[in-house]
C-alpha cells in the first residue's frame, strides 16, 4: 500500500517509536515568540542543561508588541518584560532573534516562509497553534504547548502520537471575489470546528493546485480551526518558485539538487486516508461567520440558520453563541452596520492580502462610521506595500496602515476592539472576547473586509469588483 505525503515526512523523522506510546519525533526547526517561551527557558535553567540545537531555533517578538511607534520602548510593563525576556534568553543561548523594529521582524508564521526557513519535507513546531501555516510548503508543522517547547530545547524532539490522516479535495474554478479564506471558511462551515480533531489534513484538488503560496498558507493556517493537528499541501513548481532565492533556502546548485528530492514529496496514488471529503469550488461564495467559533460560517448573502435547522444537542450552544453576537436565528447579516475592521494576522497579513484590500479601496473612501487598521504581517510586507504605493491608497481611503505584529488578532496589546462592537476581521478566530473583552468578531476575507469598509455595513465584495 502506498504512503501519504504526511506519512512520508513523519516516518522520516521518527527517532524511536515507543511501544504503545507516542513517537519520538525529530524536529527540524522550532520557531519561538515572547508569550509561550519564557517558562520553557526557565525549565531548561532549572534542569541545568544547555539547549541541544540552538541553530535550529528562530525567535521573533510578535504577539504582544504595539503596532505604532515601534521605535519607542514598549509602554505596557508586562509586555515589555516579556519582549525583553525573550531577547535575553536568545542572547544567552545563541538563538537568532528578530526583535521589534528589526528589518526581519514579523509574525512568526509570516517570517518563516518569507526568509526561506520553511522548506518542503521538514518537521516544524512552534508554541502557537497556527504553526499549521507552514504546511503549505509540504511540511509537517504543528502547534505545541510550552512543555513541548522545552522538550525541543532539551532534545530537538517531541513526543507525539501519530495522528490519523484526512484528505480534503477542492476542485474547479473559484468565482471572482472568492478567495482562499472563503474556501477554508466554507470547509469549516461543512465540517465544524471539531471535524478535523485527531487528524492531519492534506489539501488537494485542482483548486488548490492553482493557488499561490500565500493563498495556500491561508488555508493551512486555518486547518487548526477544524480541530486538526495541522494541514499540508504537496509542494510543486509554485512552491519551488516561491522558495528560490530566499535567504535561508538552499542556493544555486544545491537548490536544483534539493528540488529533485522535494519532487518526491507527494501522496502515492494507492495511499489510503482515514477520511476524505471533496468539495466543488463553484459552490463557494464570499463567506462570513455569524457565531463564536469559526465553524459557524455562511455565505455573505445567506441567513443565519433557523433554530429548526440546528441539532437538538447543539441548540443551547447555538443560542448562547448568537446571544453573545447579538444576532437572531434566521437573520440576514448583509447590510448590518459594523464599525471596526481589522486586516492582518498570520491568516491574511501577507502582501497579496494587502493588494486585495487596495484593489477595492483604491480611489474610494471608507465610510464615516468605520474605524479600520491594516497591520502588515512583517517588516518585509510593510516595505513591499510601501514600494508598491499601497500605503498611499490606504491613506487616501482614510485607513490606518500600522507596523507589524499580531495586533487585534488576539488583542494582547492596545489594539482592542471595544466592548459590544462588531469587527470584521481577516484573522482566524471569532471566539468570545478574542479581540478584546465583549468584542464581537465576524471573520471574512480581505476583499470582504475592504468592501465593508467602503459600505460601512457588511458587504459582498462581488458588488465592488
Amino acid at each position, binding site marked *: 500500500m502506498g504512503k501519504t505525503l504526511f506519512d512520508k515526512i513523519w516516518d522520516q523523522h521518527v527517532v524511536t517509536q515507543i511501544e504503545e506510546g507516542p513517537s519520538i519525533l525529530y524536529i527540524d526547526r522550532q520557531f519561538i515568540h515572547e508569550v509561550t517561551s519564557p517558562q520553557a527557558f526557565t525549565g531548561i535553567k532549572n534542569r541545568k542543561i544547555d539547549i541541544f540545537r540552538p541553530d535550529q531555533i528562530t525567535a521573533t517578538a510578535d504577539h504582544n508588541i504595539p503596532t505604532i511607534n515601534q521605535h519607542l520602548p514598549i509602554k505596557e510593563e508586562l509586555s515589555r518584560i516579556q519582549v525583553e525576556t525573550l531577547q535575553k534568553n536568545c542572547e544567552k543561548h545563541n538563538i537568532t532573534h528578530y526583535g521589534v523594529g528589526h528589518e526581519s521582524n514579523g509574525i512568526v508564521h509570516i517570517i518563516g516562509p518569507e526568509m526561506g526557513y520553511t522548506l518542503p519535507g521538514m518537521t516544524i513546531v512552534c508554541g502557537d497553534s497556527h504553526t499549521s501555516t507552514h504546511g503549505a510548503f509540504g511540511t509537517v508543522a504543528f502547534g505545541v504547548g510550552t*512543555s513541548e517547547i522545552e522538550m525541543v530545547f532539551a*532534545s530537538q524532539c517531541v513526543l507525539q502520537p501519530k495522528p490519523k490522516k484526512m484528505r480534503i479535495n477542492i476542485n474547479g474554478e473559484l468565482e471572482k471575489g472568492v478567495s482562499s479564506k472563503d474556501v477554508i471558511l466554507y470547509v469549516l462551515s461543512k465540517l465544524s470546528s471539531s471535524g478535523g480533531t485527531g487528524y492531519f489534513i492534506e489539501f488537494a484538488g485542482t483548486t488548490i493546485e492553482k493557488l499561490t503560496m500565500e493563498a495556500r498558507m491561508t488555508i493551512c493556517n486555518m486547518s487548526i480551526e477544524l480541530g486538526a493537528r495541522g494541514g499540508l499541501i504537496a509542494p510543486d513548481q509554485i512552491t519551488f518558485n516561491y522558495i528560490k532565492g530566499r535567504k535561508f533556502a538552499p542556493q544555486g546548485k544545491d537548490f536544483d539538487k534539493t528540488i529533485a528530492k522535494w519532487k518526491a514529496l507527494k501522496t502515492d496514488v494507492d495511499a489510503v486516508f482515514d477520511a476524505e471529503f471533496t468539495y466543488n469550488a463553484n459552490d463557494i461564495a464570499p463567506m462570513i461567520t455569524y457565531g463564536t467559533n469559526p465553524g459557524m460560517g455562511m455565505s455573505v448573502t445567506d441567513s443565519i440558520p433557523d433554530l429548526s435547522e440546528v441539532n437538538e444537542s447543539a441548540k*443551547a450552544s447555538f443560542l448562547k453563541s448568537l446571544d453573545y453576537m447579538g444576532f437572531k436565528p434566521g437573520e440576514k447579516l448583509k447590510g448590518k452596520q459594523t464599525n471596526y475592521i481589522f486586516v492582518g494576522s498570520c491568516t491574511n497579513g501577507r502582501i497579496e492580502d494587502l493588494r486585495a484590500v487596495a484593489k477595492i479601496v483604491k480611489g474610494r473612501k471608507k465610510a464615516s462610521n468605520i474605524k479600520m487598521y491594516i497591520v502588515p504581517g512583517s517588516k518585509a510586507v510593510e516595505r513591499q506595500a510601501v514600494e508598491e504605493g499601497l500605503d498611499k491608497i490606504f491613506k487616501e481611503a482614510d485607513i490606518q496602515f500600522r507596523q507589524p505584529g499580531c495586533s487585534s488578532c488576539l488583542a494582547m496589546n492596545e489594539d482592542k476592539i471595544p466592548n459590544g462592537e462588531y469587527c470584521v476581521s481577516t484573522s482566524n478566530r471569532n471566539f468570545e*472576547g478574542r479581540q478584546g473583552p465583549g468584542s464581537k468578531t465576524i471573520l471574512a476575507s480581505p476583499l470582504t473586509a475592504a468592501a465593508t469598509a467602503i459600505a460601512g455595513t457588511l458587504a459582498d465584495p462581488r458588488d465592488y469588483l
Partner: protein
Amino acid sequence: MPTEKFNTIESSAVPINIENIDTDQIIPARFLKSTSKEGFGKNLFRDWRYDNKNQPSNDFPLNDSKFLGTILIAAKNFGCGSSREHAAWAIADYGFRVVVSSFFADIFKNNALNNGILPVQISEAFLEKMFNEIEKDTTTKFVVDLHTQTIKIASTDESEFFEINKYKKDCLLNGYDDIDYLISKRYEIEAFENNRELSN
C-alpha cells in the same frame, strides 16, 4: 524532574455544560503576560466568572458554592483553539485534577497530560448522565480510577471505561517526566542526526 503521582480521585464535580469551550475562554489572552507558570487560577474562565464591571457572575458554576471538587465536567470539544499551555496551568492552579468531556481538542489533551491533569473522554450518553446526576444532587461524587481506566458515578455505581495511551498512563501513575526521558535519549537522537546526514 519528577511530577506529582496521580492516584485514584473521588470528588464531587463542577459542571459547565457548554460545547466548544476554547482556550481563549479558559484563560483570555490578556492574562498571558506572565513569564512564570504560577497564579493563572485566579483568571480561569475570567470573562465568564466576572461581568464587564468586574463583579462575579453569580450564575457561573465556579462562583456557585453548591459546586465544589477537583473534577471539571464540560460538554463536547473542550479546549479547542489556541495552543496556550496557560489553559492547563490555570485549570491545575485552580485545583482541578481531572477534566471530563465527550471530546477534547488534541493540543489541550497533550498540555493537560503534561501538567498532571487527566483528561477523561467519555461517551455523550455517560456525560449526559453525569450532568443529570449533578443536577439532582450537586454533591454527587465521582470516582476516577486511572489504574482501571474507569470513571464511576458513586451513587448509582454506573461506570464507564476511558482510553489513555499506556506510555502516558505510566508517566502519570509514576510521576515520570517526559523531558527527563528525552534528555536520556540524547545519544540516540544524535545518532539519528548523523545517519540522516549520511543518507542526504
